[in-house]
């Protein structure tokens, strides 16, 4: 039986790796069959597509921080509530409240469900300027 602290460690390793732009550690947190669901489109994203998206963010975002992390472990997974703070390349600082529910198998995330509010997008993404 997996101990709570092992799940907590996985949770911290996952979000810390994104903050540190450590793509290798990030990928190691996902099980081979991992899928990630998002509330804005209600669709499952494949492991490869999600990793590609996160790695693009590592290049386009100056800094990412997961603030005010509140984590609870339950049988088979964890839930983390946080505020993501992103400093974009143009200096814009965005933030959004997120709830991330993950299910764990063999020490890796096998399914994740990410809830956020697209109504907060103006506070998260830099404003579009006319070219």
């Amino acid at each position, binding site marked *: 039986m997996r101990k709570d602290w092992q799940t907590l460690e996985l949770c911290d390793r996952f979000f810390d790796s994104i903050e540190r732009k450590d793509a290798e550690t990030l990928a190691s947190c996902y099980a081979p069959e991992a899928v990630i669901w998002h509330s*804005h489109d209600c669709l499952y994203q494949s492991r490869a597509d999600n990793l590609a998206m996160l790695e693009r963010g590592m290049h386009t975002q100056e800094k990412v921080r997961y603030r005010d992390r509140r984590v609870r472990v339950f049988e088979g997974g964890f*839930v983390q*509530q946080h505020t993501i703070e992103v400093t974009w390349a143009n200096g814009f600082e965005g933030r959004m409240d997120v*709830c991330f529910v993950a299910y764990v198998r063999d020490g890796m995330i096998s399914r994740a*469900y990410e*809830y956020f*509010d697209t*109504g907060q997008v103006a506070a998260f993404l830099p404003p579009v300027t006319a070219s």
Partner: protein
Amino acid sequence: MTEGEIRELCETFFDAYQDRRRRTYDDRIVDAFHDGFVIRYQLHGVQNTGHRGSLWICIVGRVRDGRITRIDEYMDSGRFAAWAGAEGGGT
């Protein structure tokens, strides 16, 4: 409070709203932890116009002495107008 009791409390909470609001809380997925729960569900609603909408919502609840002390609700407000039929469409 056991995780089973927390789960039961959570079900009771949502059943209490169901009759009054003409809404249903479907596909509930509940995970309980030592001092609370996380529930994910699909909110189905039928408006007076006949419009039907659905919206996925996640709630993290904290529990003390058998009662909910705090709720954090994650709902996509960008989809709410469509849910309510205000944009003439549905989700």
